[in-house]
């Protein structure tokens, strides 16, 4: 199988055919060409989901460990389905069943797994930089499935894939990202990816939830939701964690929704063909009105579906892509 060739003409082929790094630690390490390669590869992978037999042998004989130190339904399931569709042998380790509760360090857990020669480790961890730590001590490819407040690269890739499906390209689009900017790894990965691909990125939230020096990331930052959504091609809402109220970041969820919530009225300020996105899990009536989440502009479930294709693409490329297949 040569995924790129199945959907793309020769002149649309990406300028690179493989990833430079053995790991996917974050969008910060990807070039625009590499991002395009992943998205193009995901195009081909998506087609597999429409087949009666949703399985290809691309990762046959490869062992992938899903090491999740934080609860996650969407991301873990998405990775597992992606791995199975590529015929990898998969293993799920969740924190409750691991020896971490006995006081083992992350480094030791990783070295013990490594001793059993997995090919890839998909890591979700509450500490920013946990994947970097693993990358330094493991030979396996490390895929970041979300590290603390740092990055969630496959989420940004699936978001980009979803936007590109509808809008053809990312360049020149106005993308508004609204919510808890301070604690969001989805925000960081999306800013890096979207600015790298030439989008006009606006971030919006209360000043209490705005990271220091945010404009240095090449985005427009505002606390006016009207300014952020006016003329937007894409509106992305970020989850507001209920415990933020206790940190006095804002007075109440009701007030948050009144000032920053995505309502139908506010949506009217955006482009007529605006896309409404949310990485999930949603708090209906807090960052997004149900009418918006369930409305015709919402692509929230498309994002979930595309997540599988994008993760298949990442797994496939990190496993060596077509070269590995030929060797097998």
């Amino acid at each position, binding site marked *: 199988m040569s995924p790129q060739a199945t959907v793309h003409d020769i002149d649309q082929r990406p300028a690179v055919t493989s990833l430079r790094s053995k790991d996917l630690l974050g969008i910060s390490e990807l070039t625009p060409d590499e991002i395009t390669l992943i998205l193009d590869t995901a195009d081909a992978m998506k087609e597999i989901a429409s087949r009666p037999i949703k399985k290809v042998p691309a990762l046959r004989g490869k062992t992938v460990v899903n090491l999740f130190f934080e609860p996650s339904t969407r991301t873990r399931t998405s990775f597992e389905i992606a791995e199975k569709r590529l015929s990898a042998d998969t293993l799920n380790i969740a924190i409750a069943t691991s020896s971490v509760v006995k006081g083992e360090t992350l480094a030791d857990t990783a070295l013990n797994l490594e001793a059993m020669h997995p090919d890839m480790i998909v890591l979700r961890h509450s500490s920013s930089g946990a994947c970097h730590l693993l990358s330094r001590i493991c030979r396996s490819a490390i895929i970041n499935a979300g590290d603390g407040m*740092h990055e969630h690269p496959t989420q940004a890739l699936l978001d980009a894939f979803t936007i590109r499906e509808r809008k053809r390209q990312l360049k020149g689009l106005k993308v508004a990202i609204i919510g808890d900017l301070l604690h969001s790894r989805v925000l960081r990965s999306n800013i890096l990816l979207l600015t790298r691909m030439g989008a006009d990125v606006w971030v919006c939230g209360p000043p209490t939830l705005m990271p*220091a020096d945010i404009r240095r990331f090449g985005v427009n930052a505002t606390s006016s939701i009207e300014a952020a959504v006016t003329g937007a091609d894409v509106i992305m809402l970020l989850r507001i964690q209920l415990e933020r109220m206790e940190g006095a970041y804002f007075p109440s969820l009701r007030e948050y929704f009144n000032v920053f919530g995505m309502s139908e009225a506010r949506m009217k300020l955006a482009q007529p063909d605006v896309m409404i996105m949310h990485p999930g899990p949603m708090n209906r009536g807090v960052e997004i009105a149900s009418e918006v989440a369930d409305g015709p502009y919402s692509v929230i479930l498309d994002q979930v579906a595309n997540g599988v294709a994008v993760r298949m693409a990442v797994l496939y490329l990190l496993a060596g892509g077509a070269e590995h297949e030929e060797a097998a």
Partner: protein
Amino acid sequence: MKRLLKGGRVVDPVNGIDGVRDILIDGERIARIASNLPADGATVVEVPDGLVICPGFIDMHVHLREPGQEHKETVATGTASAVAGGFTAVACMPNTNPVNDNANVTTYILDKAREANLARVYPIGAVSRGSQGELLADIADMRNAGCVAITDDGHPVKTAILLRRALEYAGMFGMPVIEHCEDPSLKGDAVAHEGYYAASLGLRGMPGACEALGVERGVLLAELTGSSFHVAHMSARASLRAVRKAKEAGVHVTCEVAPHHFTLTDEALAAPVAYDTNTKMNPPLREAADRDAMLDGISDGSVDAIATDHAPHHYDEKKVEYDRAPFGIVGLETAVPLSLDRLVHAGRIRLSRMVELLSVNPARILNVPGGTLSEGAPADITIIAPDLKVRIEAAKLRSRSKNTPFDGWELRGGVAATLVGGRPLYVNAETRISL
């Protein structure tokens, strides 16, 4: 035995000396300093060209970890590290286990120092019992046992009223209160400086104002009480501004800056190795404007001392997720090369000012001997090699711990020899001085 150090450049700002002198050491003491002294039965040590003889350097902020955390450092390994780094004396912080909040612990540390018989050790006692911030520690007892200052370092003194009482009480003995300046609520669970790099790495940040609030509190209380207040490991430009203002107003305030705060910025968190836990210390590496302010303060005299905040940690403790790693780096063996390279050779200060920062002022602030090469004084001498090419190698450090962000750095300037009480305890063969 007698030793005659012959023909070296002597820099002794207290006595106004910067020139070639001979120094005659008789046993533990300096017998004479003059030009062209006769050998007179002494062993003659020809000081090679380019070396500079200074009063022994004193690091007024180190963590020796003993008792209680001997896997990180002991008094013996810490003082071995000190002499290898050119320090003839160190003042050690009380956050041991148990805390140095009573004379027994003070005596224990001094006994260990006597056994090790390397650098001199001046214990610093806790402000409060167990450094818990509730009741005063046994300050007079600790002073009688040998403590030279008090601090709850690692944390700020818990309340303003306790800091006020500590200043008043310690002021009775002329002891300074050394403060880890920080507003705990602004710090929260931050692990880095609040700024672009913490934001891009997803690390919780504390702003410079977090430190400066603690400095402002301290100088106000120092003014109120008339006692001496010393700002530990100052890192933020707003803190420097507060110290300058207080000094102008005649408040008894002094401050120290650590070498990592005048060399590195928070950019080191991202590169060359992202999330290297050896870039994690408290106060954190700050942004360039803060680092530059520290350099300015060092140049213009606002900063009184260079102190390392030598904070050894076992590699197991540092080989973890960034937010779970302990704060701190070792500093005793990198301070002199960093100071020579980044301050003297960079043209920011003269050598005599460096001696003030590393010797004269720490001795003055702590009211301990040293800081000058006077006849009759103990022969605590640091001989430096300002033009020696030095490569920092973590694995070769004498400290029990190797947690330094300077591994592999090549610097101009190093230590040639360290003499404590006339005994050469460290000699760098590369400098061809034979002691």
